[in-house]
């Protein structure tokens, strides 16, 4: 039964296989990884200071690159397609690059470096980490590339504008208000977040805690913040842990799309269905089943397509010299209307939409 091939034949096969594998590997790897070192010597940011001309014509033929936290992530795809649509309308070109993993910060840095070398007009980036991208983004800005962050910000000096999905304050407070209404302002509540280090999550949670200090929430007590790391299995187990550790738990807020759908899936198949109220940030497609089967009464989110669209308009306005990113400047964003830049270069999209059984079928994202 021992079939043997001659050493030469075996070597040949081995080489062929190795070659195939090597080809496959290089095809699936990222682009340039070697450019990381070059970013080390960078000049400080070219901050807003030069003059803006609000009446300057919108340049056409600009290239705006979107660098989401993670490509192939449904949320970012909707968002980036919103940006693409806006850019196409304006006559600019759109491109999207990014890592397959939401935690590959080094990968994001090398994409920024590649875009800098390619001399794109502007970069719209959703940062995986507030500090790690700074050196690379400052280098891009010193090369005349406009930098806009969206969804998740960097430190304010590493970009010209941050397009916020809704003000962090409005999001944090409105989630508590929503749960308060559903619970009749009574009972123990918990938060199921993503990673313990996620910037936006922690900011929202800060405002949630502050909102809970108001007198109408005196009978609601935040007992625990759990971290599901935006992983289905971990979010499941963290939800189970919350329910076991706090038998009197009445409500959970999950301000992450992965967390809320995992928690909803767990609740809908457990004895806690209908007894524990879940709300937070989710997408209508993810949550439709749970709203219809009664596990979830209502949740909220901004429209990610509008977020991407606003990021595209802002990047174009920067690259056309209509704005520089200074507080108080205004720019037009097509159908979305006119926006004013707030303190620290933050532009806020608007108030979030609440989705319930009554309106969920009108939304498809």
């Amino acid at each position: 039964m021992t079939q043997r091939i001659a050493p030469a034949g075996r070597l040949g096969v081995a080489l062929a296989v190795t070659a195939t594998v090597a080809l496959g590997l290089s095809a699936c790897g990222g682009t340039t990884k070697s450019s990381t070192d070059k970013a080390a010597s960078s000049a400080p940011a070219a901050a807003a200071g030069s003059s803006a001309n609000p009446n300057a014509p919108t340049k056409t033929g600009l290239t705006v690159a979107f660098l989401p936290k993670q490509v192939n992530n449904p949320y970012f795809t909707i968002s980036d397609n919103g940006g693409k649509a806006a850019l196409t309308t304006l006559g600019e070109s759109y491109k999207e690059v990014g890592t397959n993993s939401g935690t590959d910060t080094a990968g994001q840095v090398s994409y920024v470096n590649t875009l800098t070398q390619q001399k794109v007009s502007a970069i719209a980036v959703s940062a995986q980490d507030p500090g790690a991208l700074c050196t690379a983004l400052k280098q891009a800005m010193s090369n005349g590339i406009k930098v806009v962050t969206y969804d998740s910000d960097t430190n304010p000096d590493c970009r010209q504008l941050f397009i916020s999905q809704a003000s962090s304050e409005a999001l944090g407070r409105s989630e508590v208000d929503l749960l308060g209404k559903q619970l009749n302002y009574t009972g123990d509540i918990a938060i199921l977040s993503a990673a313990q280090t996620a910037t936006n999550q922690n900011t929202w949670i800060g405002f949630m805690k502050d909102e809970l200090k108001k007198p109408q929430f005196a009978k609601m007590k935040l007992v625990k913040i759990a971290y599901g790391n935006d992983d289905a299995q971990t979010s499941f187990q963290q939800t189970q842990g919350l329910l076991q550790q706090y038998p009197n738990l009445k409500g959970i807020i999950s301000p992450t799309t992965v967390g809320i759908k995992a928690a909803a899936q767990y609740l809908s198949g457990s004895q806690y269905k209908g007894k524990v109220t879940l709300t937070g940030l989710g997408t209508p497609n993810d949550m439709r089943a749970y709203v219809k089967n009664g596990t979830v009464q209502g949740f909220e989110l901004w429209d990610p397509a509008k977020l991407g669209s606003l990021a595209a308009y802002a990047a174009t306005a920067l690259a056309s010299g209509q704005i520089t990113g200074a507080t108080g400047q205004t720019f037009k964003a097509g159908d979305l209307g006119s926006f004013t830049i707030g303190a620290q270069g933050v532009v806020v999209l608007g108030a979030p939409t609440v989705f319930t059984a009554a309106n969920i079928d009108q939304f498809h994202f």
Partner: protein
Amino acid sequence: MTTTMEPVRVAVPASRGLLDRVLKMRELAILAVLVLMLAATQIDNSAFLSQQGIKDLLLNATILVLVAVGEAMVVITRNVDLSVGSVLGITAFAAGDFLQGGGNPLLAVVLAVALGAGFGLLNGLLVSIGQVPALVVTLGTLYIIRGIDSIWIGSREITAGVLPTGFIDFGHNGLSALPYLAVLAAAVLVAVAYFLRNYRSGREFYALGSSPEAAGLAGVPVRRRILAAYIACGALAGLAGALYLARFGNVDSGTGSGYELTVVSAVVVGGVAFTGGSGSVYGVALGALLLTSINSVLPSIGVSSVWVQAIDGILLLVAIAVDRILALRVAGILRKRAAETRSARHG
């Protein structure tokens, strides 16, 4: 070759009893740690082992048990399959895509298993015929399958809303505290364990892992057994993919990323040596149950989840240390016995 498919009665000599007992201690040790941990948690929090609690523990372990059992078959032959996470992800999506189009749930599971077995066949062919180290080959297929996954799926996702209710219910229902998924996993576990222990071809997996050269010389069909191990591993990853879909009701292109490391951890903690030729799938199932239970125990007693990974790492190191000590003891017993036999012959 038809004879290999019948169980062989191996007469166990009385002198092997001690050896067997030493090896069984390994599984008993995991069981003891598991029981101790669950009991301590129950004392701290009486809600932990409620009916829902037990059901959750079993459900949490099911998918890992299935993939780890498949992985164990490969590791026993002194190989490894790192592509299981990618296979799980792509089969889960394939099953979901099929169901979304109105397919039959049972056929969807069969489809996932067949697709998984197909990827297992690819891995097995590359490893056994190409004679390339399994670590490199399956690292390559890990990326290739994930790449296919990304291209095919893009940003699409399968959500609970598009799946048949019966399929989702199957993912969390059961007979009181015993979920259907766990029953299925247990059946697979028992079947694989019986095959590895009682069939000639099953024993050859171990022979192959102990010494591929010696096994080849002794007439073990080396390539065919390696191929079989990979196909089984792929098929089980496919089955796990279908069950993942039923359990979580949500699949996208990132599903199963990094899962291979959890699987390998479960295999090692479960006492299957990476040098091949030893360990049992029961041990692996216990290892998987132990790892997933830790992730349930910590939140339940209020310990921050950041400790989970550190604790998993310590468990791995302890498991490897225990294996090393056991291996040395077994070697000592064998040497002593050989010496006794020799002196008896001379005396």
